[in-house]
């Protein structure tokens, strides 16, 4: 390869790391850089809840330590956020004002917490368990706090509920029909979930909405539209994830909910690919674009993106529609994988 070629990967999750590893495997001489806005190497997100409860140590979270990047001659830039992409000069502008040139780019920036429009004005009161950084901000506080309120109810949310139960905390959970988006939980599904969770020591609320959240000293007072009032120490929101693609907006890369890519994971720009939960992938079967969730999907897409970037024509096959078990409620989905399915870390 020419000396000035440089493969840059934005994102240090399963898609980004498997893309980098595949690139290295196929091209021993390439200069490969991973840029991550998190201050920690590749770690296993589904275990974050166990880490909160001190069931596992930080080392147990890690998939790759720094020396494994060194072994593969992959540069890792932790704690550096991409601000924007300039397609003409093939340059990434980082938030700390550094510029990085790339010859080919893989966007694997993952996703971030989704705040429902109705909760936007209370966002400052909400806590999340989306990343290691989120967790480190709240870990000690969680251990000290007694009363919790969970709003939403996606996969991580229910896992977190079980964790708090395990930690003997007092928990109320308001299950939002839009939490498992893009699917809408019907009244029947909500009833099934409520029944499934009734074994837990938690106050489960359905068919209601948060009216207000107010901070009073160190507590939060929540009121619902049906008149329920709770005073708690911490409020958590679990309403799914949205692609983390702010830095690509306005760059010329086609974006809808996520970064639009064809079945080969290529964006509308020849030298740029996207994979993992930040990508909205064209699906030949349904003739439409959809996003994927889950570790195995990200791994497969990371590998495919790298191979295609090197000239292959690997089509990413979508997971066919299947029934997903969400706390007893059967939801017909495609592209969804259980977050605990970790057969290919």
């Amino acid at each position, binding site marked *: 390869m020419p000396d000035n070629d440089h493969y840059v990967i934005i994102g240090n999750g399963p898609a980004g790391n498997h893309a980098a590893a595949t690139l290295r495997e196929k091209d021993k001489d390439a200069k490969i850089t991973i840029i991550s806005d998190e201050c920690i190497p590749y770690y296993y997100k589904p275990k974050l809840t166990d880490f909160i409860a001190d069931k596992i140590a930080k080392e147990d979270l890690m998939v790759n330590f720094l020396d494994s990047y060194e072994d593969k001659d992959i540069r890792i830039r932790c704690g550096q956020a991409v601000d924007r992409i300039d397609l003409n000069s093939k340059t990434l502008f980082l938030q700390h004002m550094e510029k990085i040139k790339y010859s080919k780019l893989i966007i694997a920036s993952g996703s971030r917490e989704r705040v429902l429009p109705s909760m936007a004005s209370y966002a400052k009161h909400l806590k999340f368990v989306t990343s290691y950084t989120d967790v480190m901000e709240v870990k000690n506080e969680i251990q000290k706090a007694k009363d919790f309120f969970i709003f939403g109810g996606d996969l991580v949310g229910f896992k977190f509920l079980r964790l708090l139960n395990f930690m003997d905390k007092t928990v109320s959970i308001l299950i939002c029909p839009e939490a498992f988006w893009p699917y809408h939980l019907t009244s029947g599904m909500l009833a099934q979930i409520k029944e499934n969770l009734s074994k837990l020591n938690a106050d489960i609320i359905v068919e209601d909405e948060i009216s207000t959240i107010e901070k009073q000293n160190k507590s939060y007072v929540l009121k619902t*539209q049906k008149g329920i009032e709770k005073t708690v120490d911490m409020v958590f929101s679990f309403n799914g994830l949205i692609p983390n693609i702010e830095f690509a907006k306005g760059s010329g890369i086609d974006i809808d909910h996520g970064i639009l890519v064809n079945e080969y994971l290529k964006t509308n720009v020849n030298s740029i690919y996207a994979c993992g939960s930040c990508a909205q992938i064209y699906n030949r079967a349904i003739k439409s674009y959809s996003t994927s969730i889950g570790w195995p999907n990200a791994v497969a897409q990371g590998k495919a993106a790298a191979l295609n970037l090197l000239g292959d024509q690997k089509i990413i096959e979508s997971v066919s529609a299947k029934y997903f078990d969400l706390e007893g409620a059967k939801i017909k989905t495609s592209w969804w994988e259980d977050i605990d399915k970790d057969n290919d870390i």
Partner: protein
Amino acid sequence: MKKEDLYSKEEKLFQDKNKIYSAQYKKQIVYSTDARDFGQVAKSIPCQDACPAKTNIPGYIRAIYEKRYGRAYELNRGANILPGVLGRICSRPCESACRHGESDNGQSVGICHLKRSCADLKPGSHRIIEGLYTPTEKKVAVIGSGPAGLATAHSLAVLGHKVVIFESMEKPGGMLMYGIPEFRLPRDLLMLEIKNILRLGIELKTNKAVGSDISLSQLKNEYDAVVVAAGCVSPRKFDISGENLENVYNGLDFMKAVNEGKKPFVGDKVAVIGAGFTAVDCARSAVRLGATDVSINIRKTIEYMRIDETEKHEAQFEGIKIYSLIQPSRIIGDGGKVTAIEFNRTRMEKTDSPPYKISIPIKNSQFSVSVDCVIAALGQIPDVNVVSKEPEAMDGVFSAGDFVTGSSDVISAIAGGRECAAKIDEYLVGEKRKQTVVRLETHDTTDRQRSYDFIDKIEMNTIDMEERLSKSTHEVETGYTEDQAHEEAKRCYLCSLKYEIDPLACIYCSACIDVAPKDCIKMIESVSVNPDGTLGRYEETSNWNRVVSIAIDNANCIRCGQCLAVCPMDCISVTKTELIEIDT
């Protein structure tokens, strides 16, 4: 020696911690027509440059900070005659350009919300200022009382001409009255600002349609000039089968019916087609009419929606879903009424000419969804049959606003109206009576504290969902309180203040560079000059042998005043720059 000169700079800072004094103490005012000054204003004040009416945004935000709401209102009114209206429904190109919204600077200033604050918070006894010219005895007919017609009429009346507006509808305001829902724009406020325009002796003739009640040639004979500001009122059509079924509306007719107090049938499931403000207005109105499942369906991606984030948020808050990359292929009915709509999925494709990105239907990707009602908000085109196909081709006939530009936004229509009035005035009196200049005034303080840069944007107060649905005309946004307006005003960088280093006094110590929080002070070896005479980019160098000056790049400067405070030579000056109109 003046008393103030007795004190050292540090002593002055000690005396008044909130003020940092610049090198130039004596007030000097210069009016410039130099291209370099116009270029500097455009580059350094991006909000004002992005505003089609060139509103003095830093000026009115500063007035709000000083709690001079009447002054802030008048500064607005100098550029647009409907500040209270625009403070609610403007498309806000200024906020997209605001430097506070640039990466690492936080969120853009709530410029539009602040504009509304001047109207909300000004005293009840506020005095309106009009710089009236002597009557000219010239008569001008204005066709249409929408924003362009009103702006043209107002400017012409100020210039001393007798103006008569011909409006085909029962009430004035055009799209403001009939296109925008009352929950976004209260009608009492709209009428108040219209009446303030009409007070200059402008005659308003409603229910007078030019083309049917009176002809353009009649007007041309009776008046010294005629302005066609008839807007865009002919809806674009789907051109697909089923669009004539019952309960399929075009967006403008639907909004007109809603705004006339009628209740068009919407049923439970409503599909709105379109990506602009009218589509969102239709969808939100459908929610208020009782629909429970409302969607906005767009051909391209969400990125291409022609609405701002606030509107998108409010629509989603009200439960409206947005589906992208789909395009209607036919509307399906039963017994003459719509029952479903069929879509094709689309993909984006690049083109070599505008709009550069189009959506292409994907073959065999059809799917249909059942609906009770379809609203096509696909935009409008001018109804040229009403008046004339080429009004400008006739001597003494002018045109303004959406009628000329096609469907745009209210602030562009107002700006177009003012420009048109200037042309008509020159036509009527034979000379140009006003010109725009750059007013440069030495300024003795930075007016800002660094802590202001870290204030979070103040969100607009709104009523809750229950109240929104209890009465469809309840205004959703309730405005800032006085304290909120004051706090939000602090966030403005006041980009109209120009910082300059005097190269003859500078000792190149680089202390200013060291304290600057942004990359705004540069060691330069040259400055390019653009073909229009404005200054171009600074050519930077890190080689001291090539440095000809240390310069402040006002396009990056956030007016924190740190450089001014640290300069040991007092060689940094602050100048307030404003675009103003003066008599020629």
